[in-house]
C-alpha cells in the first residue's frame, strides 16, 4: 500500500516537474473548439465572481470547470473543497453537510437552493443530499458562509448553498457521460438540448447512479447502497430583456438506509432496516427574470412539488407550493432590492412504531418580505448595506431579521468587510408534531423487575425559533493577478437553541403491553457561542497550473440555561471538526490532459467519536478527440478506508467505512 501511495505521489511530482520544464502551453487554447472556448474560465478567481466579490460576505464559488476537473459525482463531494463547510459521508447514500458547526444528517441551519428554489425538507428543515441534480447541469455552486437571511429565505442561519444550473444557451447539443467504479458502481448521464434565440429553447436530461453498499467497521456488509435516478426537461425563452424558464424535474431513489430502529415491544427490541427505502419527487417550476439594463429588473418564480418518502422507519407525503418575487433598482447611490415569498406545505404522515405523529396530516404556511439598500458612501471605496427580513408562519413566531454590512476598499488590492446580522431557524414539523421512539428497553434492564420501557422524543408545540446574532469580519487581498487571499472570521451567538428536556417517566398500565414511557421533548433551553474563521488561498503561477488551499477553524462554548434541559441529550456544535485543511492542485498538460489532486485533513468529531483523517483524491482527464474525453479517478487513496460520521442523535445508524475507491469515465459531447 505504501509503495502505491508513494508511486502516485512520485508520478504526480514527476509530471508536475515535467510540465515546468516543457510546459509551453501558450498553444493550449487554440486547440479548443468555439464551444469549449466559451466554457473556459477566463477571469481570475477574485474577478470571476464579480457580482459575488462585491458582496460583503464570505463567499466561495465552485465553477463548472472545477466540477469537470475533479469529476465530483454529487454536490456534497464538491462541497468538500469549500472553506468553512464540513461534509461527512455517513454511508453510500447519505451525507451530513453543514457550515460553521452543528453537523448532522438532519442538520437544519443551512439553506440549500437550486436555481433559487429551496430544497430543504418541510419535515426537518434539512436537506436529503441523496436527492439531487446531475453535476453536468450545474454552472456554479455559490457558498455563502454566515447568515444571509435578509435576502435569502428561512434557514439561512449558518450559511447558504446556492446551486445554479446552466442555461440552455450554455448546453446546446448533446452529452453522454458514463462512469464506472467501485463505490459509485455505475453512473450514466445523458442530455440533449437545442438553443434558438427566436423561439423556445429546450433541454432534456436524465441520470442514473448505482451505489454499492459500504461496509461496517467490522467488515460486515451493511446492506446499504442503492440507486438514484433523476430526469428533467426544461424550456427557455429569450426575450430582449427577459428570460423565462419552465422546468420539470423528477427524482427516484431506492436503497438501503442503514437505520437501526425499534419496531415493537418484542425482542430483539431493535431492528435493522433491511427493506428498501424509496424517495420520489416531482417538481415543476416557472421562473421569469427581466432586466431593463443593469439598473432595474425583477424575478418571479412559482413552483409546485410533490414528495413521497417510504422508508421502513417512516413514511410521508409532502406537497409544496411556493412563490417568490423580487425587484431590484439602482438609482444614484442606492442599489435597492425588495420582495416577498410565500410557501405552503401539506404533509400526510404514514406513521410507524418508531416514528408516530400527533396528527394525520398538517398544513403549514410561511410568508416573508424583505428589503435591502446598498448605499455607496464613497464610490468604489465604501459601501454600507442595510436590510431586514420579516417572516411569519403557522409554525414559527414572528421573526425580524436585520442585517448591517459595510465594505471598505482602501486600495484596489485590499477589501475589508464587516457584518452584524440576526437570523432565525424556524421550527419544523419534527420539532412540533412528531413522536420518535428511539429505543425500547428490555424488561429488567433498568433494574430488577423493571418493566419494558419506551424512550421517546415528543414534539413540542411551544417550540420557538432558534436565534442567532452573527458577527463577521473579512479581508480580501489580491497583490498580483495570479494570487488572492480571502480571510473571514466570525463570532456567533445562538439563543433559544434547541435542547432536550429531562426525561419524564410515566407508567402506562393500560397500554398493550403495559410499559414505562420515558419521554423527552424539544425545548429552547440552550445557548451557545461559536467562533472561528477560514482562510482561502488561490495561486495561479501559470495558466496551466493552479493551487488552492483552505483552512477552517471552529470553536464552541455551550451551556444549558433551562434547568429542565438534559445535558446528555444535547445537540452540539462540535459534530463538526475543529480544524479542516484542504489543498487542491490543478495542472494542464497541453490542452488535452488535465490532472487534479485534492488533499484534505478533517479533525476528529469530538461529540460523536469519529477520528481525524486525511485523504487524497486524484483525477486524470484526457481529451482523446475534440468531443471525447476519458477520465480516471482514485479517491481516498491514503488508506483502506475511514469512518466520517457516526449517527444522528435522533435515529441511530450503523457506522460505515468510506473505502478507497476508483472510477473511470467517458464523456462524449456532440
Amino acid at each position, binding site marked *: 500500500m505504501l509503495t502505491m501511495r508513494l508511486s502516485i505521489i512520485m508520478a504526480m511530482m514527476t509530471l508536475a516537474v515535467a510540465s515546468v520544464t516543457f510546459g509551453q502551453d501558450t498553444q493550449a487554447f487554440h486547440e479548443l473548439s468555439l464551444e469549449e*472556448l466559451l466554457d473556459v474560465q477566463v477571469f481570475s478567481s477574485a474577478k470571476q465572481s464579480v457580482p459575488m466579490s462585491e458582496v460583503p460576505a464570505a463567499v466561495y464559488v465552485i465553477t463548472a470547470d472545477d466540477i469537470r476537473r475533479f469529476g465530483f459525482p454529487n454536490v456534497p463531494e464538491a462541497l468538500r473543497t469549500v472553506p468553512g463547510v464540513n461534509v461527512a459521508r455517513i454511508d453510500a447514500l447519505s451525507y451530513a453537510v453543514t457550515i460553521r458547526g452543528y453537523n448532522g444528517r438532519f442538520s437544519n441551519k443551512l439553506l440549500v437552493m437550486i436555481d433559487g428554489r429551496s430544497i430543504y425538507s418541510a419535515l426537518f428543515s434539512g436537506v436529503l443530499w441523496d436527492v439531487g441534480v446531475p453535476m453536468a447541469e450545474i*454552472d456554479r455552486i455559490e457558498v455563502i458562509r454566515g447568515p444571509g437571511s435578509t435576502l435569502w429565505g428561512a434557514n439561512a442561519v449558518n450559511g447558504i448553498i446556492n446551486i445554479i444550473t446552466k442555461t440552455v444557451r450554455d448546453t446546446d447539443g448533446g452529452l453522454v457521460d458514463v462512469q464506472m467504479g467501485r463505490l459509485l458502481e455505475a453512473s450514466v448521464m445523458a442530455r440533449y438540448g437545442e438553443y434558438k434565440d427566436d423561439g423556445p429553447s429546450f433541454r432534456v436530461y436524465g441520470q442514473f447512479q448505482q451505489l454499492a453498499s459500504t461496509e461496517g467497521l467490522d467488515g460486515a456488509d451493511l446492506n446499504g447502497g442503492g440507486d438514484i435516478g433523476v430526469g428533467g426537461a426544461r424550456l427557455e425563452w429569450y426575450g430582449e430583456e427577459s428570460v423565462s424558464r419552465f422546468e420539470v424535474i423528477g427524482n427516484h431513489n431506492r436503497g438501503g438506509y442503514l437505520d437501526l430502529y425499534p419496531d415493537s415491544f418484542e425482542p430483539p427490541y431493535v431492528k435493522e432496516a433491511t427493506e428498501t427505502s424509496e424517495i420520489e419527487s416531482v417538481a415543476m417550476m416557472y421562473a421569469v427574470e427581466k432586466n431593463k439594463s443593469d439598473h432595474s429588473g425583477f424575478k418571479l418564480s412559482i413552483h409546485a412539488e410533490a414528495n413521497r418518502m417510504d422508508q421502513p422507519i417512516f413514511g410521508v407525503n409532502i406537497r409544496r407550493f411556493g412563490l417568490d418575487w423580487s425587484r431590484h433598482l439602482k438609482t444614484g447611490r442606492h442599489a435597492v432590492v425588495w420582495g416577498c415569498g410565500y410557501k405552503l406545505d401539506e404533509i400526510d404522515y404514514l406513521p410507524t412504531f418508531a416514528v408516530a405523529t400527533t396528527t394525520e396530516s398538517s398544513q403549514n404556511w410561511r410568508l416573508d418580505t424583505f428589503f435591502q439598500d446598498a448605499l455607496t458612501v464613497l464610490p468604489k471605496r465604501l459601501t454600507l448595506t442595510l436590510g431586514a427580513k420579516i417572516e411569519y408562519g403557522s409554525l414559527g413566531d414572528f421573526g425580524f431579521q436585520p442585517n448591517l454590512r459595510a465594505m471598505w476598499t482602501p486600495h484596489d488590492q485590499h477589501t475589508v468587510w464587516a457584518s452584524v446580522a440576526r437570523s432565525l431557524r424556524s421550527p419544523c414539523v419534527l420539532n412540533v408534531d412528531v413522536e420518535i421512539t428511539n429505543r425500547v428497553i428490555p424488561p429488567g434492564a433498568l433494574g430488577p423487575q423493571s418493566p419494558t420501557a419506551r424512550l421517546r422524543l415528543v414534539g413540542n408545540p411551544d417550540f420557538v425559533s432558534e436565534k442567532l446574532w452573527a458577527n463577521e469580519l473579512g479581508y480580501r487581498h489580491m497583490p498580483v493577478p495570479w494570487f488572492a487571499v480571502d480571510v473571514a472570521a466570525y463570532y456567533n451567538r445562538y439563543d433559544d437553541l434547541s435542547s432536550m428536556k429531562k426525561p419524564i417517566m410515566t407508567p402506562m398500565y393500560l397500554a398493550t403491553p403495559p410499559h414505562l414511557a420515558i419521554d423527552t421533548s424539544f425545548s429552547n433551553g440552550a445557548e451557545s457561542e461559536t467562533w472561528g474563521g477560514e482562510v482561502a488561498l488561490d*495561486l495561479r*503561477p501559470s495558466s496551466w497550473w493552479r*493551487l488552492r488551499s483552505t483552512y477552517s477553524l471552529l470553536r464552541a462554548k455551550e451551556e444549558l440555561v433551562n434547568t429542565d434541559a438534559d445535558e446528555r441529550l444535547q445537540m452540539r456544535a462540535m459534530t463538526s471538526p475543529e480544524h479542516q485543511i484542504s489543498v487542491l492542485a490543478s495542472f494542464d498538460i497541453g490542452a488535452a490532459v488535465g490532472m487534479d489532486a485534492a488533499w484534505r485533513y478533517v479533525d476528529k468529531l469530538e461529540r460523536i467519536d469519529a477520528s481525524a483523517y486525511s485523504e487524497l483524491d486524484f483525477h486524470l482527464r484526457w481529451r482523446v478527440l475534440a468531443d471525447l474525453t476519458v477520465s480516471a479517478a482514485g479517491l481516498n487513496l491514503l488508506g483502506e478506508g475511514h469512518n466520517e460520521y457516526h449517527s444522528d442523535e435522533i435515529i441511530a445508524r450503523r457506522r460505515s467505512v468510506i473505502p478507497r475507491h476508483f472510477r473511470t469515465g467517458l464523456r462524449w459531447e456532440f
Partner: protein
Amino acid sequence: MRHRLAILALPVLAMTLLVAAAPAQAGDEAPREYRVKAAFVQRFLEFVAWTNEHITPDGPMRIGVVGDSPMEAALQDLTGDPGVGRELLLCSADELAENGYGVVYVAATIDGLPRNEHPVWNDLHDLSSGILTIGEDPGFHLSGGVINFFAQGDRLRFSVSERAATGAGLKISSKLMRLALIVD
C-alpha cells in the same frame, strides 16, 4: 499515524517547491484573457467568409491590432504555430488599410483615448468594407463593429452584428451565429 503524516508531508513539500519555482514563469506570457481571445479570433476565421472573390478560404489572413492591448503578443504566439488552421500575418493597421481586407482587433482605448475618439478608428471605419472588426468595449457595435467580446460571469462571450457584417462584405456562418449573442 506518524507514518501517514510523513507521507502526507510529501505532496505538501512538492507543492511548496513548485510554488517557489513559479513566479519566474508567471510574467512571460500574455494574460489568459487575451490568449483565450486570440484563440477565439483564429476560430472565428473558420466561420467568416469574405464575399470578395479574391480572398481564398484558407489562404493567409492579415490581422492587425489597434490600441492598447496585450492582444498583439497573444496573436504573435499563434502566428508561428503550424497547428493554426489558417496562417496569420500580423501587420499594422496601415498595411491592412492598403491591403483592403483582413481582421482588426480594436482595443477599448487607443493611445489612452477612448477608441471612438481616436482618429485611427474613424479611418478604419471609413474603409470597413472587407475588414472584420473585433472589439471589446460595450459601444463597439454602435459604431459599426462586427464582433464584440464581453464578459459573462467568469467566461468570455461574444456578440455579432449582422448589419455590420453585411456592410463589411462578410458572411458569417450559422454555427457562429448560433453561439453568439446577435445584435440587430
